[in-house]
């Protein structure tokens, strides 16, 4: 139980007055951000990142991850009370959560949502606690070829398994890679794609792009749809909480299933949204009463919320252990780590033990404190939604501008944010996915340099990616995932060749 001892050490790092108070500030800000329409986890973390620049890394990352937990909890409030999913993965929560609120059971639905988020996160954090150190120490043997193979796997799975049109995913991803390549090339020291423009020497900052793509574009979209906020009031009494918790053991199977789905999809990139829908659909399929789903069944809140939060949390596992974020928010947290000069990946567990275990301990504590906080303060946060949008919209714009400026103290970045805002708006309306773009932008340079370092190491021989069983397996798996749609089509065709025979035979029987 080496992990356990290290975890206790992590708690001791955490339990100082300063860290704890920043944790609570982070949670409040996070819930606030999660509740506001047009903001969500990734934007919230990106916009609030500058606040943490002057802190020490541990306090900063604890506050950031608490913003993330808060945003996850906050998203459920809007889905249930207002039928507006704060995040894409809260969509499935609205299916049964909002009908429950309409039937006067808002408090039960909210308690169910918060509790199941807590359970989902807890399972994922346990997974991180016991799995991450092992994966990290295994990955210590990785050289550039192995790392490139893992990056390749990440990107290929996006193209092969994504639901969007393939060419749109590729456009989004290549655009991210290209923008990441702007500026000084770290391997050769040459300048690329700057067109003699001084401002571009530093390259395009990932966080600036995120603030524009998600924050500003979301404001434009919200304004376009003219959200009419009409929601249900709710306050949660202790009696309701206990009642819901008393029934909890009955749903252990749903909770367990959703946690498992969530953890699995969270570790593979881009999974949180899929996880919540899959959790919901499977709960429906295995239920005794599938008809009741969508009409306000509490199980319909448990299932997607548990899965979404398990996946949102376990997305941090590959980020910490391998330096590969499993979700957009994890990518932004990774961007934050880079700002403090911490290089996420296997070495982090060796060189910055205090930091890693402080962060993992904060996941436990943040979830417990967050659960208590949301259960007690729901009425206050629900009231935020009654503030007119015309007051909130300009405040969000100002926060975005502050965030974008503070990252490099550059006015150019504010303009860049505005351009990305428009790009994000157009892309979202054309169904061009933004997640591959974000991922390519943050990982682009690392992927390229690991490729080129492998090439320097092998003398330009591509066979290095099949040089041992480990790298060979990952590379092959990546290629299989990339061509998965074609492969599954071929399988379908083969099985169809068999099926007509079966169909012909049946009439005779």
């Amino acid at each position: 139980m080496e992990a356990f001892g290290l975890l206790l050490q992590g708690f001791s790092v955490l339990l100082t007055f300063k860290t704890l108070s920043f944790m609570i500030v982070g949670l409040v800000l996070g819930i606030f951000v999660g509740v506001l329409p047009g903001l969500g986890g990734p934007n919230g973390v990106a916009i609030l990142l500058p606040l943490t620049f002057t802190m020490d890394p541990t306090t900063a990352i604890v506050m950031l991850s608490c913003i993330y937990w808060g945003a996850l909890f906050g998203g459920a409030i809007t889905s249930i009370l207002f039928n507006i999913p704060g995040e894409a993965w809260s969509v499935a929560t609205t299916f049964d959560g909002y009908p429950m609120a309409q039937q006067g059971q808002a408090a039960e639905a909210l308690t169910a949502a918060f509790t199941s988020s807590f359970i989902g996160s807890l399972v994922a954090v346990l997974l991180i606690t016991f799995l991450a150190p092992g994966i990290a120490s295994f990955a210590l043997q990785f050289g550039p070829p192995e790392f490139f193979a893992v990056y390749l796997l990440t990107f290929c799975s996006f193209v092969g398994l994504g639901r969007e049109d393939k060419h749109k995913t590729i456009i989004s991803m290549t655009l991210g890679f290209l923008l990441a390549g702007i500026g000084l090339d770290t391997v050769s020291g040459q300048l690329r794609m700057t067109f003699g423009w001084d401002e571009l020497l530093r390259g395009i900052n990932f966080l600036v792009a995120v603030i524009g793509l998600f924050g500003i574009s979301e404001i434009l979209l919200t304004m376009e749809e003219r959200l009419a906020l009409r929601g249900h009031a709710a306050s949660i009494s202790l009696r309701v909480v206990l009642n819901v918790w008393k029934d909890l053991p009955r749903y252990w199977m749903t909770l367990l299933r959703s946690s498992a789905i969530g953890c699995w999809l969270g570790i593979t990139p881009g999974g949180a949204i899929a996880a919540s829908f899959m959790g919901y659909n499977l709960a429906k399929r295995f239920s005794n009463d599938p008809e009741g789903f969508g009409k306000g069944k509490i199980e319909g809140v448990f299932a997607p919320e548990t899965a979404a939060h398990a996946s949102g949390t376990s997305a941090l596992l590959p980020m910490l252990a391998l330096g590969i974020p499993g979700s957009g928010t994890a990518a932004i947290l990774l961007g934050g780590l880079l700002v403090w000069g911490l290089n996420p990946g296997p070495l982090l567990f060796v060189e910055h033990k205090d930091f890693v275990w402080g962060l993992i301990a904060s996941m436990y504590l943040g979830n417990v404190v967050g659960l208590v906080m949301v259960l007690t303060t729901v009425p206050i946060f629900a009231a935020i939604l009654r503030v007119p949008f015309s007051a909130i919209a300009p405040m969000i714009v100002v926060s975005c501008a502050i965030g974008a400026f503070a990252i490099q103290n550059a006015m150019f970045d504010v303009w860049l944010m505005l351009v990305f805002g428009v790009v994000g708006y157009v892309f979202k309306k054309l169904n061009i996915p933004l997640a591959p773009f974000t991922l390519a932008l943050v990982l682009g340079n690392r992927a390229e340099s690991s490729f080129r370092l492998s090439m320097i190491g092998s003398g330009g021989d591509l066979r290095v990616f099949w040089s041992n069983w480990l790298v060979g397996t990952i590379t092959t798996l990546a290629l299989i995932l990339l061509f998965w749609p074609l492969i599954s089509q071929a399988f379908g065709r083969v099985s169809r060749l068999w099926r007509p025979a079966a169909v012909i035979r049946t009439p005779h029987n």
Partner: protein
Amino acid sequence: MAEETEPATGDAQAVVGTRSVDIVVYLMLLAFAALLGFDNWRTGMSWEADGPQAGYFPFYLSLLLGAASLYGLVYKLLMERGPGETFVTGEQLRRVMQVFVPTLLFCVFMQWLGLYVASFLLIAGFMWLVGRIALWKALVTGFLFSLIMFITFDIAFDVIMPKGPLEAAFGY
């Protein structure tokens, strides 16, 4: 990059269809890919003995971007005919502009007046003119928000924002 592409005209039903925006965006992406591809070709995109040159990766990525955009363009032009869905209606575009134009002005003002004064103007102006909220409420909200931001960032967290003549008058 894909900037605003649709011309702003009155409050007609559909200002522009998704199909036309799609085509314009693909054309822009194609042009962007060509530009970057050319620049990387100039940087050097060949394969040396010890691996690729600096422009190698981006050059082939721009080719890929170009190919994907071209595919999208051809697909749109050949396969999906007819007017298609509405990208944005006049009414929607008006509302989007209601927030985009003030944001643009805010960025312009930020350079001359500093962030805090510009944010006061944006919030108060937006609440009053777009939200039709009473002027005094708008002014108070704008002032309080800017003040809180100033205290949080410039004083408490030492994150220095651009400032203008007003802050200079107070000695900051």
